[in-house]
């Protein structure tokens, strides 16, 4: 069954991607770049939405188009007089860490992904999806909200220690 978000996403792709693709083409980009830039703009939009940080009364398509334009300019390094940066809405912003490299080395990443899968899912629900504790307790089958909260901290500790241990191993090897 398709969720509401799936339907919304499909509509955004149909209505907004062609417009973004045309803008990226004008900047000298190709289809692959346009697709990646559009998708990153969608992800940033969804993140801001989850954090209630969207500017009021800006339609999703306009917001995504604005973000895509900023990303396009950055990627294609063409901030000339035709595409000024200063007309951007102050609230339209790309998270500073958006294109940051992985925070840990690849072997550490693979180890943590394999060893702490369920914990990573739980931590994602809390820190990325910003679900309420009630939703998390239901989704992860916790009997009480308190046990969901305790498990979150156990997971934080567990993944934190895994990163630390494998980071040390990485340093000495």
């Amino acid at each position, binding site marked *: 069954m398709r969720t509401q978000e799936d339907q919304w996403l499909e509509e955004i792709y*149909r209505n907004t991607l062609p417009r973004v*693709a045309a803008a990226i083409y004008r900047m000298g980009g190709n289809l692959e770049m346009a697709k990646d830039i559009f998708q*990153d703009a969608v992800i940033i939009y969804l993140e801001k939405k989850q954090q209630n940080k969207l500017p009021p009364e800006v339609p999703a398509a306009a917001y995504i188009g604005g973000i895509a334009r900023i990303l396009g300019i950055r990627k294609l390094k063409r901030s000339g007089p035709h595409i000024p940066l200063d007309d951007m809405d102050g609230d339209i912003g790309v998270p500073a860490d958006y294109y940051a490299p992985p*925070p840990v080395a690849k072997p550490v990443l693979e180890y943590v992904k394999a060893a702490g899968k369920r914990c990573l899912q739980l931590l*994602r629900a809390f820190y990325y999806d910003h679900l309420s504790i009630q939703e998390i307790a239901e989704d992860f089958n916790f009997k009480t909200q308190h046990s969901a909260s*305790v498990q979150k901290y156990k997971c934080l500790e567990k*993944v934190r220690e895994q*990163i630390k241990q494998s980071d040390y191993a990485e340093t000495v090897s």
Partner: protein
Amino acid sequence: MRKQLAEAQQIEQYLLREMPAASRLVFQARMLAAPALREKVRYQRKTLQLVRWLAREEKRRELDQLFQRLMQDTSFNNSITSIFT
């Protein structure tokens, strides 16, 4: 909540800037005096960064799949590819 978990909670509040200013100063002073706490903060920050990084990677994969699916639809495909030809 056992002591160790309470510490993870405190570090979380520090990293997410959910700590009142006075407590934040006390916590920073504790970090200065305790390298072990400093290290925990460092790795817990990395954990949060990793969670976000992995979530974005997963989201990109999901959106790639959606894009591939939509590209099978001739009219959608034309509306995109015609721009680049």
